[in-house]
């Protein structure tokens, strides 16, 4: 399955954080690599969006829409 870039969830991230996030930097909690949100790999053909570190492929952000409420867990992408 081909991943898209962090840009592809720009709208959802704006919804959650209240600001444009795709140029924001962060650090992968698993491997320590730094990346901009736009550089993360997004798998969104799923019950939610799974966002992975481009270096180690671990999951750093998960977005789900539960009953029209958007939930974002970015705890593994430090600094966001």
């Amino acid at each position, binding site marked *: *399955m081909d*991943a898209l870039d962090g840009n592809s969830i720009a709208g959802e991230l704006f919804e959650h954080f209240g600001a444009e996030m795709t140029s924001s930097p962060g650090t992968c909690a698993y491997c320590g690599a730094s990346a901009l949100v736009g550089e993360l790999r997004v*798998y969104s*053909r*799923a*019950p*939610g969006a*799974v966002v*992975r570190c481009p270096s180690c*492929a671990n*999951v750093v952000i*998960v977005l*789900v829409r*539960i*009953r029209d409420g958007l*939930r974002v*867990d970015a705890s593994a992408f430090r600094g966001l």
Partner: protein
Amino acid sequence: MSPISRGFTGRRRPVADPGRVPPGQYVTDDFPVLSAGPTPHTPLDEWSFTINGAVEGPVSWRWEEFIALPAETITVDIHCVTKWSKLDTSWRGVSVDTLLADVETEADYLTASSDGGYTTNLALEDATDGRAWVAYEYGGEPLHPEHGGPARLLVPHLYFWKSAKWVRGLTLTPDDEPGFWETYGYHNRGDPWLEQRYQGD
């Protein structure tokens, strides 16, 4: 509600027999590929399937041993929580009852684990009595990697996120332990006929 987009209907088709389609679902002819990560490619000579956890003794099969187990061909409808349903899909695989035949356990739940780290939880009663398989053929052909091959869990009476792709084992657990999507708010059981999409449904 949003204003109507004149003339837009989406890809959905009306169904001949609405009784076969759970509430909120629509029928599709194709087989959408959903994924939470890159497709794993475990070589068959490195593949194994293991049952462990709250059991008397763990059991494990290599690929050659696994496909030598008694298998069944079944035709079932499948229902994805993202609202598409596909009717009359044909699979071949080993019943989970067969896999658990010599396993002694007092556990009531299990967690299925896959290559790539995906997990999903099931009540043991939802995985037994002819309700679940580990499937390695789809439509008469070896299961394609993008659809979960070499083998995936198949639990058609629940939403399809429970049918873990690239499954490598079942861990029996005394308590229900939410898997990947369940942790983020999806339902622990996921019965499409009760529309159990999210926790609390």
